[in-house]
């Protein structure tokens, strides 16, 4: 009992052992010493504690929420510029003006709904399908001054300026081909003036004028279909090189170049698909 702890130089008051003194002191002595050295404001201390805890919690929760928000937003995949992409037929041979345009007089003229095929190709991203159409002579008659057919449509290439490509995703609410479908002449009884061929969407009934940069014939869509810029080289091979400046973004994408992997700059298969039966409400 007497010994206590050796105190040495760290003893609070002079020599001897301070611990002995404390032990014999009345209960509460230590607290009173603290109180003498400076009043502690319990309210303020609690407030500070609360602030510290709230701050820590805030940082922790905020960090977790921020991290989670970042986690669910992966980097958007996409490409930085439009590739120059050559189009190929399903059998692997290059798609040429002669092939698309050459067959067209009879191709379009004989459009029997059961056998006719449409070309579809993805560009510039893998989930952005486009129609490749030859509109010459789209009304099935040879062009003449009174019957110009669909020659030299805006952006058209080939001898008659009649080969065009439009996005196959509806600009209203994003229904893709074949819900959005090209109806060749004779497929549908509905006509717009003398125009008997158009792109029509079975989702909400939007119709697009293929002879006029896919502008709207009927709503509810208010934007035209994006149009692909086509080019042909000296031997007639067809290339997709971009979208026309007046094209809106492909629907479902905030930007035509973002939202999937690019199709690559070398080649793209143009798939064929049968013409879909008329879905236009009469």
């Amino acid at each position, binding site marked *: 009992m007497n010994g206590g702890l050796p105190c040495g130089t760290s003893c609070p008051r002079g020599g001897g052992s301070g611990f002995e003194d404390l032990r014999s002191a009345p209960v509460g002595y230590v607290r009173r010493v603290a109180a003498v050295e400076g009043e502690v404001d319990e309210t303020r201390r609690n407030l500070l504690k609360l602030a510290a805890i709230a701050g820590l919690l805030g940082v922790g929760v905020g960090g977790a929420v921020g991290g989670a928000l970042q986690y669910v937003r992966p980097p958007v995949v996409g490409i930085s510029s439009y590739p120059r992409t050559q189009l190929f037929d*399903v059998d692997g041979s290059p798609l040429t003006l002669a092939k698309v345009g050459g067959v067209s007089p009879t191709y379009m003229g004989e459009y029997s709904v059961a056998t006719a095929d449409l070309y579809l190709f993805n560009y510039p991203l893998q989930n952005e399908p486009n129609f490749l159409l030859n509109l010459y002579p789209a009304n099935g008659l040879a062009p003449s001054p009174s019957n110009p057919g669909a020659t030299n449509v805006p952006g058209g290439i080939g001898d008659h300026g009649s080969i065009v490509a439009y996005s196959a995703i509806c600009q209203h609410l994003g229904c893709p081909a074949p819900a959005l479908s090209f109806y060749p002449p004779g497929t549908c009884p509905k006509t717009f003036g003398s125009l008997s061929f158009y792109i029509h969407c079975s*989702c909400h009934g939007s119709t697009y004028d293929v002879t006029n940069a896919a502008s709207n014939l009927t709503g509810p869509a208010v934007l035209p279909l994006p149009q692909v810029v086509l080019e042909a080289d000296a031997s007639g091979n067809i290339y997709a090189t971009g979208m026309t400046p007046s094209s809106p973004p492909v629907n479902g994408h905030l930007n035509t170049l973002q939202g999937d992997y690019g199709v690559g700059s070398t080649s793209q298969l143009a798939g064929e698909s049968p013409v879909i039966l008329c*879905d236009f409400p009469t």
Partner: protein
Amino acid sequence: MEFGRWYNRNLNRIWGFIEDRTSMRRWAVRPQPEFSFKPSYWTGAFVAIAFLYQAVSGALLLLYYQPSTATNATYTPCGQPIGTLSPAPAAWCSTYYIIHSVPMGSLLLSTHLYGAYAMIFLMVVHLFRGYYLGAYKAPREFSWMVGTLLLVLTLGMGFTGYLLPYTQLSYNATNVGLVLALRLPTLGPLLGPFLLGDGTSQSLLSRMFAAHVLLLPLGIAALLYAHIALFESHGIAPPTSSDPLQRRRFTDREGKSHVPFMPHILLYLAKWGLLYLGILFGMAALWPWNLPTYVGNLSVSPGVTEPDWYFLWLFKLVDFQGVTPVIAVGAATAILLFLLFVPFLDRSKRTHPRDRPVFVWIGTSLLSFFIVMTVWGGETPGVEIAPALAVQTLAPIFLVNAVAIGLFHRRYIRTYRRRLAARDLASSGSRVPVAPRSPSSTHPRGGRP
């Protein structure tokens, strides 16, 4: 006799052993009054039964379903010719596999689909039953709000589940819903990356899958727990009455004759649950679901794109000329907010529908609006509607309801006054009452005409 006693004693010992260690009796839902054992008091339990079946059947479907858009031209479990130009994605193939190769797969998948329809239908019944009988009134406001959120999550389950078989139809309909959201100003670009991920079809499918099998069910389970816990603390809503002050209280007899959960309520619910399963399996066996063609198959027309029936009204709304995504989503949000906050809009203490003509009018109009739009959407999906025709068709709903409810209410007030006058006459003896004492005390809505 001897055996019976032995059996009972041992059963009690086993049960006692378990009960001592778990207090399982206290887990049970509290006893309910005898009068409540009619189906109309248990519409919520039917929804819960439907949800339980969805969880079980969904977990079983998960054993085979593959949430992948990958196509494999050499391995075609869906019986598709090898080397087809546009091979089917794995999500569709695995669905095809469940239907055509897994024993009972077709039955299970069909019951999961029809069970979803049933759950949403029962939910709508539960909602409108509570709406008409004023079940959202104090003290059950939070119960109602949690229930509304449950409806939202369940519709979310419907939306996300629709994409999973990865058919052309479901893909297109999902696109429509997503583009509706993406076309919203400022909100659209903000929400886009969360809905679409990196923009690939796989990313979208993964998100829909995760939401459908885990995130939304977790939310539903949590909210359902809260919904049932609130039900537990309030007890079942007593019947409505024309008590001019508030909901009728239980009579003494009703209040005392409560039925315990074990085994009465459990057996009662089991009875309805079995009936539900019987109808569900019967329908699935008679009319198994046919899987439409897959995403990317360009050779077959998807037909007219349309969502399931519970979204048809919104789909038709988008057909209206001049209805932009902002208007369509805005209208849906407004209806939702109305439902969510109706306990704080309808402040009167009366619960009987005839004492709440305005809210009955709103509810009936909404219900008729949904029915008309759904039928219209089913008859002419994707046909553009001119504004004049839309007004001609929809305005009568609100007008006819208003007139009918108004006339009924006038008649009700007159009868009420006459009865009150007759009572006054009887009680006042020879004195002839000149007129009702004051408009406020004779009006059945207590001075708030």
